[in-house]
């Protein structure tokens, strides 16, 4: 055991681990972050895979990063700038397109072109989602109460939650109930008639899940997209200057400014438990570090089953964690381009290149993409959500050149026959084909391509089964159920061992909130 003892060791330098470390260090604790890779960030990372071209290798857009984290950790001073991503454009098979722009009038005019009724409905839908997001938001901000506990704190929190739901009024409560039980496709069909609009909206309900737009429960995730708007972040989606790695780097810089140490290429093998208490960690290379407490920022499988001897854990917890649904279903293709893709529906360079472009022509298209995955294949014609970071931040590529980030579904982790280099390239080809249908010049302008499969996400980024959110954002895995009913408040059965990754409340995405709430919980205990 090394001579010095840390107040806290954080395992995993993903953005949540870094947020956690920064808050602990800011409170005066001596903190060490141990990261397996050669860079911080985990799934929020920027890497120059092809010389001169920077890829946001995994996550590529930022919506829910908590503004209080940006304020508390002074992230703007550490270089964080989130630039607006203003539009979404979906090319259509008939040569037309559907776009939604930053401006309400402009969007209305565009929707009106497709359906006058949908243009009206879109405004009403937007205000309802805004109201419901406002209603649900307090839940995301709360350290989840334990509904079976009798502690005053938990009771108070539960009571607040109950009162909050009452205050919604019958109509909104009813609507919320629908969102929680219906499929995105069914819910949207109550509002809209334009297929391409329904498809593009429903796509947000399937991201990171092993579900199709017609699967019940996908409607709820629609709401998450309106959440970002409530904090003075008026654009739902943004792009971090320098790629999503810039988010992690700013948080790391902030943590270091508060005195935290960040050690790269340090893979933790095991958490040292003595007398039922976490007292440090052992690295793969045999190094040992002692600490008063240990925080895991890894996913629940790794936190419980990977880093601990099973004998330390109660049987029912082991069962719960084994059952925790974590099937990966997404892939990523990053491209270095010699020029911009030229979309047949909007020829030339235009404002659409500065926003998201979605390959989601119809609900059927998405559901078929899911059908392939259901039976263990990657989608032959996948859903793709892409952005061109170099159009927003020119420093992402050499002058005149471009990078393109393509998020893809579905690519099941459990691919029939397993993932291999050939299958990876075949998957990459399917993605390029799907886009090239609408931007025929794409194949001629590719300088380099990086294909990331769920298997790569597990191997390279330590995401179990390649799940982008450390576990599906399904309703039975949220709030006071994340990751399990008993251990949903950042604690574990082992004294001094905490969890703070995306597998804890409020879940995945670049929010920083699990890391922050866990730190608040720990600091309450450390007093």
């Amino acid at each position: 055991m090394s001579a010095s003892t840390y107040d806290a060791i954080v395992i995993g330098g993903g953005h949540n681990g870094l947020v956690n470390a920064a808050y602990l260090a800011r409170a005066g604790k001596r903190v060490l972050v141990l990261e397996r890779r050669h860079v911080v960030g985990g799934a929020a990372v920027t890497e120059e895979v092809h010389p001169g071209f920077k890829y946001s290798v995994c996550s590529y857009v930022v919506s829910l990063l908590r503004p209080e984290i940006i304020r508390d950790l002074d992230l703007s001073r550490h270089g964080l700038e989130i630039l607006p991503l203003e539009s979404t454009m979906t090319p259509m098979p008939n040569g037309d397109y559907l776009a939604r722009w930053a401006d309400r009038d402009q969007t209305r005019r565009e929707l009106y072109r497709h359906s006058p009724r949908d243009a009206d409905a879109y405004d009403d839908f937007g205000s309802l989602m805004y109201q419901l997001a406002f209603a649900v938001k307090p839940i995301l901000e709360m350290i989840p109460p334990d509904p079976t506990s009798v502690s005053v704190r938990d009771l108070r929190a539960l009571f607040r939650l109950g009162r909050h739901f009452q205050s919604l009024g019958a109509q909104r409560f009813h609507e919320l109930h629908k969102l929680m039980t219906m499929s995105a496709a069914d819910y949207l069909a109550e509002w809209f008639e334009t297929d391409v609009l329904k498809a593009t909206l429903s796509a947000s309900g399937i991201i990171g899940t092993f579900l199709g737009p017609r699967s019940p429960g996908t409607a709820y995730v629609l709401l998450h997209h309106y959440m970002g708007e409530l904090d003075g972040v008026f654009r739902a989606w943004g792009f971090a200057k320098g790629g999503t790695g810039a988010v992690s780097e700013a948080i790391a810089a902030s943590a270091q400014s508060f005195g935290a140490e960040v050690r790269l290429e340090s893979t933790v093998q095991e958490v040292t438990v003595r007398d039922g208490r976490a007292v440090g960690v052992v690295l793969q290379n045999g190094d040992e570090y002692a600490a008063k407490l240990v925080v895991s920022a890894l996913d629940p499988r790794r936190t419980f089953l990977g880093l601990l001897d099973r004998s330390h854990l109660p049987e029912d917890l082991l069962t719960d964690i084994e059952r925790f649904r974590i099937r990966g279903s997404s892939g990523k293709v990053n491209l270095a381009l010699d020029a911009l893709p030229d979309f047949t529906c909007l020829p030339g360079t235009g404002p659409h290149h500065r926003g998201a472009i979605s390959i989601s022509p119809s609900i059927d298209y998405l559901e078929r993409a899911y059908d392939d995955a259901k039976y263990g294949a990657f989608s032959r014609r996948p859903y793709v959500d892409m952005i061109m970071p170099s159009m927003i931040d020119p420093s992402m590529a050499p002058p005149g050149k471009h990078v393109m980030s393509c998020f893809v579904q579905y690519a099941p982790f459990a691919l029939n026959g397993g993932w291999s280099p050939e299958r990876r390239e075949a998957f990459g080809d399917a993605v390029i084909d799907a886009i090239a249908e609408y931007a025929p010049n794409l194949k001629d302008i590719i300088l380099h391509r990086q294909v990331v499969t769920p298997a790569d996400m597990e191997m390279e980024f330590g995401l179990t089964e390649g799940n982008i959110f450390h576990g599906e954002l399904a309703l039975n895995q949220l709030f006071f159920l994340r990751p399990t009913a008993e251990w949903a408040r950042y604690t574990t059965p082992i004294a001094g061992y905490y969890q703070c990754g995306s597998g804890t409340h409020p879940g995945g995405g670049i929010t920083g909130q699990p890391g922050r709430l866990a730190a608040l919980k720990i600091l309450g205990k450390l007093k």
Partner: protein
Amino acid sequence: MPLRTTPFHPRTAPLNQAQDWRRWSGFLVASAYELTHEREYWAIRSAAALLDVSPLYKYRVIGPDAGRLLDRVVTRNVAKCSVGQVMYTPWCDDDGKVMDDGTVARLGDDVYRMTAAEPNLRWLHQHSRRLNVEVADESDAVAALAVQGPNARAVVSMASEQDLADLRFFRVTHATIAGVAVTISRTGYTGDLGYEIWIPQEGARQVWDALVRVGKPWGLTPAGMLALDMARIEAGLILIDVDYVPARRAIIELRKSSPFELNLAWTVKLDKSGFVGRPALLAERDRRPTWQLRGLAIEWESLEEVYAEFRLPPQVPTAAWRVSRPVYAMGGQVGYATSGCWSPLLKKYITLAHLEAPYAAAGTELMVEVTAEHRRRKARAQVVDLPFFYPDRKRA
């Protein structure tokens, strides 16, 4: 261009000396044509003003059940609307809260035109189930001009070569201007004698040109939104999103208003059966509304006192404002003013205000917050029944 321009744009753009445009329902419209809007305001009150009001939403409602559909939706009794008549009306959601206001014009036995400030196509469709009616959005197909002011009748009569003396207040007629078939309604948003002309968009420019030609000797002046805003406050006419929040956009209940609370009790026909919001409105009538929309006239002497502290004469706004200002009684805040302006005609500083019902009687002395030299002060004001200005010529 991402924003739209109206069919009159080729005419209005060269006139807009400062290229001073504002947005209205996704269109560009002139704030003012001249460098100051004063002459345009006075044209409304002393001669005639020509206003491009094309961005209004317009729906054509046709079919044997057209009247029934409208009756289901709006609070006025459309069954009583005769051919050639126009009704001003609000419409409400199920809770009896105002969603929008506009007009319903009966153009033929089974043909109506509804104008609205907000998109309402979906709302109308939702209520037309099992009715034999068709609703068409003619917002783009129909351009609209308002000719407002004491000389409006002369101008429009000459342009249409038709004596409009018989076209009574809130009546509509078919006519031809410069060979273009139009409808002319005796309506407007200025509280003055005035007409609105509904023109197929292909003929828009011909009609504009004809009006400008015959209007010259009558002092017809193109006027923008700044002038209109002052006139409509004098006329006590409410503006959506400024004086009330449409129910579908109100995030909280507090922001919604019933027609009773907007001084529109006269438009609510509770004796007609089955229209959207009726049960809620019945209940509200019985328990009496908690708010009232009224005029407030700020006392000049009180303004003098406020500004005297800074050795200044009263500073009054040159254009209408649209920010909410608290209104107080002795005991505390009892309401808020939502828009206001200095009326050059009345020589009064006037505002529209939402007041708690007990403080809404005409003559009640209240106080409005004014900001003088960055400091908050209160100026005395009297509650006034609307409108502030009501010339005989408006209805004559």
